[in-house]
């Protein structure tokens, strides 16, 4: 029981991993169509876009900001990519670079106004969420652009060494993001800015610059997500990516990234994204209506954030139960989080997890 209490408040990666494996086993036990190679390939294709966008969401959240515009930015990237290739006749590789560059540029706008401009990012990106979506509809007149180019689908359905390309993208990007956050100065600065912006400034870190950088990376990754969505159906649509920002942020949070900033890991985010997609897949396999799927996703997010915020209380509750039942007569195991100030408790519970995530 002690150990259970500790693991509730414990590691950033093992917790979500255990929960995900539990979820996957439940799914595998309730339907025999889950552990089928075709279905698993589907899952890996479904998870790719969410997982890639979730890298950006994780970085932005690490700096204690939020990006709500990623789904809309993916849609804008999609229709502009279709336009570039089909209408302007631009070669695909150049079109990809232009679109990713545009994503980075729009990410810069988000970051610049949220940091240097001091507009809370929650509000500013709520605005760009609407603006990017509106621009996508404006550009296409509301109808999708079909049959862009026959080669385009290869970006999504192609294989490399027998593995689906989206899987390769995910693995490569996650490896890079993990290495960046762990081994690059820029990554360390993101944790520092999210952990204590005032101390970061007084340690010589350009807080606004670091925050802007996180948004730029998030924008570029959202654009990449838009490119994959487009390649998947060989068409560009202003309706793509609805709720993608929700799934990306949920992946990060389910993975244990703290919305207060400074604590989290991209590996855990990948687990979070997998968990969401597996649950969706399971509901699909059980033919549950999509309305219920949305309700399920919302519930998962609520529970995940709840666990994040109530970690210390949950641990204390577990300890209390332990003392009252099995541990009668044992020594008090009161955790360090029971400090003098209840409003400092979030820091305590965050710092417990950081031991696992950024242990240098």
């Amino acid at each position, binding site marked *: 029981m002690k150990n259970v209490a500790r693991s509730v408040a414990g590691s950033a990666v093992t917790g979500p991993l255990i929960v995900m494996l539990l979820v996957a086993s439940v799914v595998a036990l309730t339907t025999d169509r889950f552990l089928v190679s075709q279905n698993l390939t589907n899952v890996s294709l479904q998870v790719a876009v969410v997982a890639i966008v979730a890298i950006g969401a994780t970085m932005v959240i690490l700096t204690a900001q939020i990006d709500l515009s990623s789904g809309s930015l993916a849609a804008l990237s999609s229709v502009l990519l279709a336009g570039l290739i089909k209408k302007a006749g631009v070669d695909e590789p150049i079109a990809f670079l232009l679109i990713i560059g545009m994503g980075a540029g729009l990410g810069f706008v988000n970051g610049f106004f949220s940091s240097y401009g001091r507009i809370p990012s929650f509000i500013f990106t709520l605005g760009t969420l609407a603006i990017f979506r509106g621009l996508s509809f404006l550009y296409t007149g509301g109808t999708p652009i079909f049959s862009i180019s026959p080669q385009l689908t290869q970006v999504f359905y192609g294989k490399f060494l027998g593995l689906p390309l989206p899987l390769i993208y995910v693995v490569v990007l996650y490896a890079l993001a993990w290495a960046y956050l*762990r*081994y*690059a*100065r*820029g990554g*360390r600065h993101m*944790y*520092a800015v*999210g*952990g*204590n912006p*005032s*101390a*970061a*400034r*007084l*340690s*010589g*870190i*350009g807080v606004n610059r670091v925050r802007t950088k996180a948004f730029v990376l998030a924008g570029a990754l959202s654009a990449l997500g838009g490119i994959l969505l487009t390649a998947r159906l060989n068409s560009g649509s202003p309706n793509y990516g609805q709720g993608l920002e929700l799934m990306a942020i949920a992946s990060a949070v389910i993975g244990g990234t703290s919305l207060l900033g*400074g*604590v989290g890991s991209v590996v855990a985010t990948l687990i979070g994204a997998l968990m969401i997609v597996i649950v969706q897949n399971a509901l699909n396999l059980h033919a549950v209506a999509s309305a219920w799927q949305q309700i399920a996703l919302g519930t998962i997010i609520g529970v995940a954030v709840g666990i994040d915020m109530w970690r210390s209380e949950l641990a204390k509750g577990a300890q209390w139960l332990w003392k009252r039942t099995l541990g009668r007569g044992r020594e008090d195991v009161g955790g*360090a989080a029971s*400090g*003098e100030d209840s409003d400092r408790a979030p*820091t*305590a519970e*965050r*710092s*417990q997890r*950081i*031991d696992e995530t*950024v*242990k*240098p």
Partner: protein
Amino acid sequence: MTTSTVHAPWELRDISKYFPGVRALRGVSLSLRGGRIHALLGQNGSGKTTLAKCLAGVHPPDDGELVHGGEVVHLRSPAAAAERGVAIFHQEFSLVPPLSVAENICLGRMPSPRGVVDWEGARRQARDALSRLGVSLDVTRPVSSLSVAEQQLVEIAKALSGEKTLLILDEPAAALGPVETERLHDVIRALRSEGTAILYISHRLDDVLDVADDISILKDGRLVRTIEAGDTSVREVIRMMIGSDIEKHFEHHPSGARDERLRVEEVWTDAGVKGTSFTVARGEVLGLGGVIGSGRTEIARALFGADRITRGTLWIDGRELRLRSPRDAIAEGIALIPEDRKTDALFFNFPAPANITVANLDAVSSGPFLSLTRERDQARRLIGELKIDARALEQTVRFLSGGNQQKVILARWLFSDAKVLILDEPTQGIDISSKADIYRLIDELTARGVSVVLISSDYRELLEISDRIAVVQGGRVNHIASHGELSEHELIEMAAVDIASEAS
């Protein structure tokens, strides 16, 4: 107003309060009688504010009893204290800027018969409270539209309004000008005659002696004595605050070399530095003495590039500096250990190594990449040298004691090879052995030629460590004395009394 019924007394019986690593209060017993002004005096860190917070329900005591009118009470929250008629006024504003003056004054106890707010009643209450201060303000204006001085008056009015059994004033005068202070004293005298008990905490000794009936002196969390105000003098109070049983923690080693390292000329900032000038030599400790609000912290922030210098110049080693941010200052070898280490210095999401290297990641990088092994090795070395709790290598600094936390921050600036180290209250709230470690470290650093600017409200410490003492008043250095030239008495008097004469 109510008739002058004397309120039942508040008694503190053997009150103790512990914080991690510190015993803030040890068995303090006091009696606060209605119709008396009781002054609580003591040096910084002696436990005055903690005592006030125990009474105000902010920090319930760990041991001992609070007794009101013969009945033991447990004040577990500020609301519970307010219900018993306890009000507190302190420097930190507790106003809600967008709300009106009336709403702020009545906050938390809006007259609302049958659940509907009686706006006329609220405005009347607010006007009454303000008129006792001799102020007339439009009570419907939002607080955000008032000047800082007006906001202070609203803050006081808020503490005064309603039926009070005990009013606590924690350094009220630090935020007030002389006229407002006089008015405040008139009001608390009036409250006294209405039978309210008043606990008055202040650093301005002459002010306090002027208005108080009883005086209690705290030292290191213990009650030294309670006496009647008429039976004592400023001089005697200071003697009791200092005590005579303090061991010497620090052996002063005067620095030999006298090459100028830092020169400050007529520097101004918007934050409150007003044309200050001084120099610091290589290997010298310059101590800044002064009361709360004198501008010492603001001078430190200006030297570190944290506040923009609007006029005047800084030189380091004969070169003129243009500091636009702390980053520029760090690049020039200037380091600041801020007063509030929790909000301005520590990363609670990092263990000690990342906390130590954060200001100088270049030293553990190859190209853009960090070497986590090198970081760990360097951190281990510093943790050993500074006698920091070894668990900090793995664990977040959240779990360290205040002294260990402070040493982690010192390690950060040792690691970045600072040439000028500004220490703002480096030993506040930390245990004796960590204090001794920090003193030893200052000594070692100055021996290596590092210049230290030391801000401390512990004047004994300041006088012992500093090669020279600068007395700061009104945002500038007014007087500089050499080591041994000033006694603690003289420094306290200079810092406290000059302010009063400047104010009048």
